[in-house]
Each structure stands twice: as structure tokens, then as C-alpha cells.
């Protein structure tokens, strides 16, 4: 259930990336990957560290995914920005 919650949170927050300038690696699809993968991985790390089972969910399960989404999006943004700079340099 926790996996489902993290994934849902990742997709939910991804919808709002439409308001950001599109500098993500692979654009909106890259942002989708960044937010969902980030949410699930970060959620899993925090979940494991806190010793909570996957079936044990509450509001904090949603909140835990938020920094994961931010980190995932930041990574994809960084990759996109670097690709842009490389393209400019060429």
C-alpha cells in the first residue's frame, strides 16, 4: 500500500510541473520519471529507516514522498540543463 501511496503522490505532484519552464531531461516525460521514481525510492529509504511496514500507511507516508519528488525533479532538471549547455557549446 505504501508503494501505491508514494507512486500516487509522485504522479500527483508531477502534474504541477506543467507550470515550470521545460528544462527537464526528456521534457515532461523525464519529469514524470523523476517525480515517480524519486517518490518511490525516497519513500522506501525513509520507510526502511523508520522500520515501518509497507502495509502501515498514514499521512506521513504521503509527506515522505514529497522530498523524493523534489529530489527526483531536481536530478532530471540538472540533467536537462546540462544537456542544454552541451548543445549550446556545440
Amino acid at each position, binding site marked *: *500500500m505504501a508503494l*501505491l*501511496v508514494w*507512486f*500516487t*503522490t509522485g*504522479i*500527483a*505532484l*508531477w*502534474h*504541477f510541473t*506543467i*507550470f515550470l*519552464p*521545460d*528544462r527537464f531531461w*526528456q*521534457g*515532461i*516525460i523525464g519529469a*514524470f520519471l523523476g517525480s515517480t521514481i524519486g517518490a518511490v525510492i525516497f519513500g522506501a529509504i525513509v520507510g526502511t529507516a523508520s522500520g515501518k511496514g509497507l502495509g502501515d*500507511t*498514514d*499521512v506521513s*507516508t*504521503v509527506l515522505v*514522498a514529497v522530498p523524493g519528488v523534489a529530489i527526483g525533479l531536481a536530478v532530471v532538471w540538472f540533467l*536537462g540543463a546540462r*544537456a*542544454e*549547455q552541451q*548543445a*549550446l557549446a*556545440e
Partner: protein
Amino acid sequence: MGKRRKHVFVLLFVLGLIAVSGIVIANKETKLGLDLKGGVQLVLQGRPTPQQPTIDNGSMERAVDIIRSGCDELGVSEIEVSRVGSDQIQVGIPGATSVGKATECATKPARLYFFDWEPNLIGREFLIGGRPGREPPKGPMQEATKEWQEAGRLPTKRENQQLIAAGAYPTEYAAAKLASEQELKQPCPKCSQPTTYYLFEKKKPHKLIDGPEFTREDLFIAASGRKRPADAGLVLKVPQGTIVVSEKPSDANGQVLENAEPGWFALKDDPALSGTEITRPKQESDEFGQPNVTFGFTDDGRKNFQEVTRRIAQRGAASAIGPSSQEAAEATSGHFAVVLDNEVKTRPIINYAQNPDGIDGRTGAQISGGFNSIQDAQDLASFLQRGALPINLNLISQSQVSATLGSEALHDGIKAGLIGLALTIIFLLVFYRFLGFVAVTAIAAYGVIFFALVKLIPITLTLPGIAGLVLTIGVTADSNIVIFERIKEEVRAGRSMSSAIAAGYRRGIATIIDANVVTLLTAFVLFVLATAGVKGFAFVLGVGTIVSLLTAVVFTQALLGTISRSRLLRSPSALGASSEGIRWHIDFIGASRWFFSISGVILIVGALALATKQLNLGIDFESGTRVEVALVKATDEEAVRDALEKAGISGGEVQKEVNPALGDNAFLIQSKTLEPSEINEIQKELEREFGIEANGFNSTSVGPTFGTTVANSARNALIFSLLIICAYIAFRFDPKFAVPVLIAIFHDILITAGIYSLTGREVSSGTVAAFLTILGYSLYDTIIVFDRIRENMPRMPRAAFSQIVNRSMSEVLTRSLATSFTTLLSVTCLLIFGGATLQDFAFAMMVGIVSGTYSSIFIASPVLTAWKEREPGFVRRRERITGLEGSVPAFADETELARLADDGEAEVEIEEEVAAQREVQPKAGAVATVEPAVEGDGGKPSSNGEPPASDPATVARRERNEKRRARRQQRRKHGRKR
């Protein structure tokens, strides 16, 4: 063959098919599932035995044959036995009103073994012996008595004394502990069972929690389906080669006391012969008139029987001192035990004085003294006659539906289907006039042919199958709508009626085939991977989709083609195409930000609901037993709970149920998974206390294994559906088209899950089928939008991708709304009139259809746009349009683009402009959206790097662009002059 002739030929063919279908419908019976006609349904899972270490095709087939023939002999008629997957068997017993006998005939392994008792006994039993006329040794007897006392079983009680004297252990734990200390015997082809596991309580007297199971993992799944903690108790592993058997005491007359607590023995698993070596078992009476079961032996069995009895007799004689009378010989004679399914049924002495050379098997043998009634003896004889199952069969799911509830469900399903059909017909007639009439004819033809197929194949019609049928009516109407909208477009564009019809079918057919292939793929994956209940739905959906292609496309094309030149179709108003029709002019892509925000907020709410309220998983997933009962005497929950306690069931939830089919005094009982005998106890107790209405008792039990199977099959079906469908879309369209489709599907499924969580509705295996259908439906809609985008791409070679998408969506929006509306009509009817089971299904469908329509328009297409616009070709188009217009309008101006396309100079001009821009601008990165150019105010360079206005070439270009803009605004204001 000319077109007209071809059409007439197709019409005659379909009419012939309808006539044949009519004959089939009149003469063939409809095969109804157990949920519609009532009865008992069981799902069994095969487990290996030492003789059959793997579950293969042969052993499963043998098990199916034994169940089928065996249950027939037990008087269970019309039994339906079929294999499900590689290791499951589904048994349906129509008309059965209780689970007891029906379940027993299918699940009782009836494995009979004969043991030379004393050499196989392990532990102190050997010392005590239990032989009549012989005083057992004092030391071991004292030790045994103490142990029985410590276990809380009175050693002074007559039946306990009997068991102590036989050398039995007071608890299963004590016997299993001893058994667990024995060595593993491998290989052991003669062994009656493989290594088994037991879970006992940690505190004394170590009551049994679970077992015997064939795997350690099975011990840690409770009957309720919940996982047990790792430290739930003590696990004992009894290695192959040793078994734990029980024996019940008997009264003074030798009658087994069925209700008495048994004693336990650890035994070497080395049977002398097995049930496969006996013949002609039958119930008879012994010399005292008591029921017994007699049987003969096969040739091998006879030899083995004589050999083992001789061995027992010789051993008895050897331990005697001098010649003995028959009575005295009993003290040293050994026992021969008949063990049926790990329970000692009888343990006679082989008196060496009476049978010094053993017993000749030619006269057969008998099991006597262990039957409470003639029926018991008859049942055992029948089980032995049936033969032992080659594998162990675990009951993992069982359900009992009363005939009343079944017929009520059928009635509800038919009512919902008819009302849905009527509303769809009214909508089609109002919206499409004569074309609507053609569609109604097609639906009628579909109904007749499909119903005939249901009878002819035959398809067992179940409740989910009816839901599939209702859905295919929507799909049939959808196919017609896709084509009719095309025809109307062509008529409005000024084509003649016959060429509009031809063009409509030509252009619509690819879309319909793509959409139907996706539906068929979903149905196929569901059929292959899903559990039995969902299979019926998938089969109906698959067959229905194929038939709908015949009636909605081939038949209607032939019908319209034949009458296209008739007076009926002279006027466009006959098709509902007299006016301009609804022309959508919505900037879907521009508005997508707001739709994304709405979806984001809904999903956040859904995530919070999933996290806090989770999903209300039904017993299909969680396992357990659910009983619905209609009582005669009015009562309340407390009284029903008391009755359950009396039946030995504690901890069950009882609630009054509102179910018109069961009347005003209906109750729903939910508990952990109960054994068939426990369900029978409940039925008997409720009958005794309150009386049960005729056919007013329904039960469903799902074991944890079945719950896991349902969950796994749902997950696999989902993953495989997605993979196959994405591969199809990538193949038919473009790999980039597949990704937005996936995202839209995630969107739909998560929104549906969120709504289920918020509303607390139960998620059953039917809901899973609905979820997977949503997947197919969402794709159907998305494919129709994408198909139009694909069609418009070559038509708009200069337009930005967002403009292509805006135009495509505007063109198909009416169709999308019309098809969603017709399908929603069917589903709404299921929701309102479909009865409890179909309502659950319809609710998931309704949420999914609304979400699917929404996501195909407002999620999938904008995502595709954002991704495609990063492609260099589309980036250049945007730059070109921005250069000309200052920004990218929502819709491409066709006249202007066409003029530019025809004007070679314009093309060169644009290329030059773009080249000039490239020289001045820094190289742009891969940015999806090209922002509108900021218009300069003189000589200053614009923010996006445009050259200064003082450049004569730039000034001239801007002047030209200004003139074009002015012309365009003029046209928008006053309309286009042709």
C-alpha cells in the same frame, strides 16, 4: 463483384446468420453459471505427495476424473469440474444447498493405508502396547499417566484410560515433537505423505495453531489471510518417513466415540499396503448387525495382505511362551491398523492362534466398529470405491449461492441490460436519425447473433459475463458513432451521400480496428491470466467485440451502401447533418495547465485517502468467510451472534443487511475462513433458532492461498495488458504515442483507486475486472484521439504540434462525448438496476469511464504535445510560426498556411528568416515551448535575440507580417469570403 452486389451479398449473409441464430436460440438451453442458478462452487489447489512429487498435467487430469466420477457416485449430480491454471480445479455443483457433502466429495483425499502397527510405533507406546489381557509395564504407564494429567486430560476418565493403555500421547504436540526428532527418509516412494510442518502455541499445553502444512510458509498465513508474526509459536517439522496419526476411543460396544478427544501417535510411515490395492469396497453389516465396510484385494494386495498378517501372527507366536488358547494369544498378538487420512479407523488384533499363517486375502477384509450410522459406512465405501486422489487438494475458495438469489441476480442483470439498451436506442435515434435507426438494427442483429453464440459454444453466463455483455452493447454503439460522425463530416463537407458513406467507412475503419484490437488484447490477457470469475467476463467481452465488428461495421456498411441512393438518404437532415453541427473551438493545450492542476489535486486527495483509509479489500483478497442469510423469525444482530457462539464460531461480525432479494430479515456474517463443517453448523444453528427462508442461505469462503492467487493474477494481468497494448500502439502509431497512453492509464487507475478508498467501497475480484476494463476503455478513447492526430499530421505539414492536437481534439470531441455517453448509459443502468454484485462492478466502470474520457482529452494529448514539440522538426515549425505571427495561435490558420504552402516564395522567405534568426540568436537548447517573440519598439533588440528593427530586411518582414495579421483579424471578424 460490383459494390452493390457485394453489399446485397453481405446483407443476405447477415440475415441468414440471424435466421440461424434464431433457430439456435429457440432450440438450445442457456448455460447459466452458479451465481445465476444457485449451487456450490469450490476452488481446490493441488499439492504434491511423496508418490506424486510434482503437480503435472497427468495428475491434475486424474484428480479431475476422480472428482467427477466419485461425486457422481456419491449422488452429487450435474457436477461441473474444470481445471483452472496449472494447479487449480474448480468444482461447481448446481442446486447443492449445503457445502458439506459437496465439499467432502471433492476434497477428501480418501487415502487409505494399512500398517503393521507395533513395528511402526515410535516411543513408549511400543512398551505399553495396549494388548488385551496383558498388564502394561508400570514405569512407562506412570510416566504416561503423569503426562496426561499435566496436559489437563483426566487419566481416570474411561476413554482416556483406553487411550493411555494403547500408549497414545495426550496432545498432538507431544506426538509431533517425538515425530520431529526422527530422521528424514528420502526417497520414500511408499510414504503416505511428504515432510509436514506444525505450529504450536509456545505456552503449555502447546495447543495446535496450524498444521499439518506442506510448507513452513503456509503456517504463517492465518485462516483470515493475515500474516502471522515470525514468533507466533513453536514450529515442528515432521520429516518425510514419519507421520502423526490420531485415534478416537470407543465405547464398551466398540463404537467409536466421534465427539471424544483423540489420542495421538507418532508412526513410521511405512505402510504395508495402500488403498490402491483394494477392490469392491461396499457397505454391509457384521454378525451383530452393525454397519461395516467390506472389500477385496487386487492380486498384489492379496499377497501383501497375507504377508503382513502372517508377519504379525508369527511375531505374536514368537513372543509367546508355549502354545496358547485363542484368548491367551490376544495378549501377545500384534495389531493391524487401517488408517484413513491420518486417522486410525480400526486397529484389530491378528490373533496368531486363530490365523497362524496370516489371513488369506482372497476372502477380502472388513473395516468394522468405527461407524456411527449406516450412512457413515456407505460414505466410506463410496470414497474407497472412488479411489484415492493422486495429489492433495486444498480447498482455497468456496461459495454457496441460493437459487433465489441467483435468479434475482439474473433478473436484475437482464433488466439493467434492457433498460441500457432502450436508452442507447433512444439516444441514437435522436442524435443520428436514420443512421441511428441503422445502428439500432445493428445492435439488434448483434444481440441475436451474440445470444446464439452464448448458447452454441456454450458460454456459461455469469454475472460478470452479463456485465461484459452490457459493455459490449456500448462498444457496438461506439463503433457506429465513430463511423457516423465521419459520415456526417463528409456530408457537411459537401460530398454526395453515397461517397460520404464510402469515405466515412474507409476512414473510420482503421480507428475502429485499432480500438477493438486493444479491447480484444485486454480481454485476451484477462482471459489467460485472471481468476475464474473474471474469465467469464473476459470471454464475453472478447466474443462480443468480434461480433460487434461484424454487425456494427460490415453489416451497417452493406445496409447503408444498399440504400445510399434511395430517397431515404436524399436529405442530410436524415442523418442529423443538416446544420453545421457542433464546432468546438477550444484551446485544449492552452487550457491543459488547469486540467493538470485539477488532476493533481484529485490525485493528492486520492493519495491521502489511500494512506489513511487504505482500500477496503474484500474476502477475495483478504480471505475469510461471508454468509448471507434470510431468517424467518425477526431478530437482531446480538441474537444472531449468540447463535454463532452456540455453533462454536466466535469473533464473527454480524450486521443486518439491506438486500431486497433476501427480504427484511437478512443478515451478513463475516468471519475468518471457516471449514465447510463449521458453515454447516452455522446453518443448522440458525435454522434451529430462527428458521431460514427457502433458499435463503448463501456463503462464500476464500482461503489465503486463493486471495494471493487473485491478487497475483490481477497484478500480472495489469502488467501484461499494459505491455502488450503499449507494444501495439508503438507499432501502429509511433513509440512516443505509447508513453502518454501509459501515463493516462496510471492516472485513471489511481483516480479510481483513490475514489474507492475515499468512499470505502469494497474491492472484489469483480472490481479488478472493472479496473482492467477501464484500462481497455481508456485506451479506446485515447486511440480515437491519437488516430485523428495521426491523420491530421500529414494534412497540416506547417502547423505546430499543439495546433494539430487542438484541431484533432476539436474534431473528435463530439464523438468522444457521444461514445462516453452511450457507454455511461449502459453502465448507469447496471449501477441503478443491476443488483448488488453488478453495482460494484458498474461503480468502478463509471468512475473509470469518466476518468478515461477526461484523461484521453486533457492528459494524454497534452503530454504527447509537450513531448513531440521537443522534436527538432516541430521546434522549427514553432519558430517559423512565431516569426510570422508573433506567437503560436491555438489553431492553425488553414488559408494562410495553404497560401504559404502554395507560394514557393513564401517558403523560401520563411527559410531565410529562420536562417537569419539562427545567425543572430544563440543556439537554443532542447526547450519544449517556444515563447512568443516580444515585439520590439524600435531599434532595440528583442529579448529573444531578434535583430534590431533598423535592419531594412527586418523592417520589411515585420511590415509584411503586420499586414498578414491585419488580414487575418479582418477575416476572423467578418468571416471568410469564398
